């Protein structure tokens, strides 16, 4: 399936893009992250959360194909 991923803040600095669509044949977020760490090794050092369809998910969550977002620590206010 195709997975649309958004990157923000510090994470977007590492990926050098705000958005991309990846082809992905596995099922869980854990597996997607393994794929991303190969593409962007510096991501491994960084703290971030992942949202699927605007809700935070855990690494075991099965991906549905809806929009993902990699969110570095929040700094609102």
């Amino acid at each position, binding site marked *: 399936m195709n997975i649309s991923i958004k990157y923000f*803040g510090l994470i977007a600095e590492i990926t050098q893009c705000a958005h991309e669509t990846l082809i992905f044949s596995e099922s869980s977020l854990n597996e997607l992250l393994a794929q991303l760490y190969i593409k962007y090794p510096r991501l491994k050092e960084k703290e971030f959360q992942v949202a699927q369809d605007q809700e935070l998910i855990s690494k075991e969550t099965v991906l549905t194909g809806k929009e993902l977002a990699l969110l570095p620590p929040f700094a609102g206010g």
Partner: protein
Amino acid sequence: MKDRKPKNVFRQGAISSEFIGESIAKHQTKTSIGAHNIFLGQVRADKINDKEVVAIEYTAYEDMANAKFHEIREATFEQFELTCMHIYHSIGTVKAGEICLFVFVSSPHRKVVFEALEYIVEEIKAHVPVFGKEIFEDESHQWKVNN
């Protein structure tokens, strides 16, 4: 409460003191209100390794952020007897000394506005996906993290 739809909380650039003054003025027709409480977040010129922050550039996952702001609004109205509540957050560049967050709650009585305001501000800091790039005088930067 069901007819409250998510609003766009974000304002381009700093939130002006005139905007805040006008927002206060608009509440003078609501004569059941006895107490207002306002929180303002202002960008600090922090010194980090001898370099001074001159501005913060805010970005956000806007759709999710507006949905979160809406959830916070709903949860606040359910817990606290408020007459009204307004939240505005900057997006884009806000210089040191300028205002980036404006939270405004009103109620007939004072006790509830203190509790509600602090609750809202803490919820925003913890749960809304907003990101802040602290820009230094020499144009280098670092990423802000809420504590």
